C-alpha cells in the first residue's frame, strides 16, 4: 500500500514517513499540493491514499483535494487532512472539499494509523 504525504514542512513529512513506514506502508512525499498532483499523475505506481496539510505554498490542501475529486479516477481515493487549523469551520471546509478524515496537529501516531486502516478497510 502506497501513501502520499503532502506537507511543506520537511520535519512533518519525515515524521509521517516514520509513522507509516513503521506500520508497513510505502510512502511517497510531496512538498505542496501542486507537487502532490505532479507526483500522482507522473507516477506509474498505484497510490492508495493521500495525507495532506492545508497551509502550503503554491497550492493549498483544499485546492489539492478539490482538484483530485474532480478527476473520476480519484474521486474515491481516501484523503486525510492533518493540519494545525483546529476550528470547526476549517474541518467543515475540509469535508466539503472532499476529505474523509480531519486530524489536528501535532499528529498522534496511533490516531493516524487507526484512521488509515479504517479508510483502507484493514
Amino acid at each position, binding site marked *: 500500500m502506497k501513501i502520499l504525504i503532502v506537507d511543506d514542512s*520537511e*520535519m512533518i513529512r519525515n515524521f509521517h514517513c516514520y509513522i507509516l513506514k513503521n506500520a508497513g506502508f510505502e510512502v511517497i512525499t510531496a512538498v505542496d499540493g501542486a507537487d502532490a498532483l505532479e507526483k500522482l499523475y507522473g507516477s506509474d505506481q498505484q497510490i492508495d491514499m493521500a495525507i495532506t496539510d492545508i497551509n502550503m505554498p503554491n497550492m493549498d490542501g483544499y*485546492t489539492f483535494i478539490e482538484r483530485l475529486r474532480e478527476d473520476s479516477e480519484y474521486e474515491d481515493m481516501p484523503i486525510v487532512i492533518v493540519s494545525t487549523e483546529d476550528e470547526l469551520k476549517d474541518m467543515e471546509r475540509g469535508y466539503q472539499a472532499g476529505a474523509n478524515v480531519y486530524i489536528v496537529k501535532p499528529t498522534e501516531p496511533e490516531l493516524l494509523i487507526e484512521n488509515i486502516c479504517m479508510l483502507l478497510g484493514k
Partner: protein
Amino acid sequence: MDEFRELIDNLSSEDERERAFAVEDIVFDSVPGAIDLLIERLSIEPSRFVQEVIVNNLKTFKGLELVDKLLPLLNSDDAYIRNAIIDIVSCQDENAFSSIKALLSDPDKDVRKFAVDILFQLRSPYSAELIVTVLKDPDINIVITAVEYLGRLEATDYIAMINDIILNTDNLLLRCTCLEVMAVIGNQQSIETVRHLYAAHTSINQLELYSYLKFLATKGSEADLPLVFSLIKSKGKTMAKEIINTLQGILERASIEFLTPEIMSDLAAYIDSDINSINKYELLLFLADFQNEEILPILLKYAVSEEKLLCLGAVEGIGVLGKKEALPVLRQVKDTVSDSDILEAVDKSIENLDG
C-alpha cells in the same frame, strides 16, 4: 484618468484573458492605487489563473505600504489567499521585519505561525534572531516549526536553546525535531545531552529511532554501532535509509581500513536482504572503501546482476577497490550490457584497474 478607467473596468471583465492583461497593464503603467486595486481584486477573483497573475505582479512592489496592506489578509478564510500573502511578503526585504515581528505576538496562533513561516522564507541573516523568540510560544506547533526552521537556517548560535528544549519536553514530534536539528547544528553539549537522554537505548520509541539515527549519522561514534547493527536485523528494510547513512557517517569518521568480521558478515547479509535496489547500490559502493578480502567476491557477484543499479554499484565499486583480478569480469560486463551509464562506469573502472 480615462485611460486608466478602462483598465480598471477590465479588472472585472467576463473574459479571464482581459482581466489578466488588465492586471499586468495596471502595474506596468503605474496606475495610481494599483496595490489597493489588485488586493481588492485578489479576494474576489474566481479564476486561479488571474489570482496568480495578481500575486506575481504584486511581488514586483517593494515596501511597507504593500506589506501593511497584505498582512491583515492572513486572517482570510481562504487558504489560497493566506498562503499567497505569505508568498508575496516573503519576497520583501528586511524593511518588512518590523511589521512581521509584531505578528509574533498576535493572539491568533495561526497568524503567529504564518509570521514564523514568512521569517523563514525571507531567509534573511536576521530571521533566526526573530524565530528564536517564539521558542517559548504556548502553541507547541509553533515551537516545533521554529526549531525546524532554526535547523534549516543552520542557526548554530541558538543550539543551546534546542539542547534545553529536548530535555524538557514530553512531545514526541518535538523531540524528533530537536534530534534532527541537533544532527545538523549540534555541538558537544548536544552529544552529551543525547547520550544522557538515551542512555538506555533499548527503550527508545520506535518512531524516535529514526531521528535518533539521523543524529548518530553526524554525531555518533563506533560505540553506537551495536545499536545500528541490531536495527539491521529488526528494521533493516523500513529504516534502510537511516541505517545506511548512520553506518556511513560513523565508519567514515572512524577512518578504518578493515571492517571487523562481524560487521563484514552483517553488511554482506544486509546487501543480500530484501532492501531496495538504490540502498544496495549505496552499500556496494560503500563496501569498496574497505580492504576486507570478502568484498571483491561480493562485488563480482553483483557485477553480473541484471538489475541496473546493482550492476552499476558493483562495477563502480570494483573500480574504487582497484584489484586487477576483477578485469575479466568487467570485460564480460562490457560485452553483455547495453545501458550507457553502466558502459561508462565499466570503462572508467577498467581504466582505473589497467592504469
